[in-house]
């Protein structure tokens, strides 16, 4: 499985602008699992995006293939090869 994870604003300064993340898809293969596995490779920064219990922090915003995903649904969103995920902090445009 290969997915693209994009980070924005201050998350870029932690995880880089974007990463191609290649992993062995497990049984669940959810968006939350995949982003969690990627962020765990930055142990000191994992807490910026996830809580200790492995839930998205409540200020994190997510897009999956350009569709906004509710944090609470991220464990139910199944990924496919080539999917693009965006992880970002609260917006401040306008």
């Amino acid at each position, binding site marked *: 499985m290969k997915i693209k994870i*994009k980070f*924005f*604003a*201050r998350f870029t300064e932690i995880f880089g602008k974007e990463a191609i993340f290649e992993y062995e898809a497990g049984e669940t293969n959810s968006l939350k699992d995949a982003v969690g596995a990627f962020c765990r490779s930055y142990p000191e920064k994992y807490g910026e995006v996830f809580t200790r219990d492995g839930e998205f922090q409540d200020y994190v*915003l997510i*897009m999956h293939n*350009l569709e*906004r995903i509710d944090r609470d649904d991220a464990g139910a969103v199944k990924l496919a090869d080539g999917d693009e995920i*965006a992880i*970002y*902090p*609260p*917006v*401040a*445009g*306008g």
Partner: protein
Amino acid sequence: MPVRITKDDVDIAKLIEESKKESMGAIVVFDGIVRNDGIDKIELSAYIEGATKEIEEIVADAEKKFNLLSVEVIHRIGVLDVGDNILIIVIGAGHRKEAFGGCEYILEEIKTRAPIWKKEHLKDGSRWVEQ
């Protein structure tokens, strides 16, 4: 193109003239500009594809909800100075209430939904704006 996320500034007068239709009685323009809150410059970044899609959805909702006849949204990115245009919304409608309603709706939704960020450059460093 009704939605653009771009480094370039735009000609507001031209946008207004090109928006005009015979059935239009009111045009409302919002121009958000860089305010001097003790900053030197401001840097805007965006998830361009994501923000374009979100704003296109916002515009489609607003067109239906407020019966709009034309909509142009230009959100700038890159490094901007005090006084520079950040966000320009040009709305045309039959009547003034629709034009004001549509313009304010689109603005508020962009501010809460569009993946766009500001970083303020100060004399002694920089900081991300979180609203």
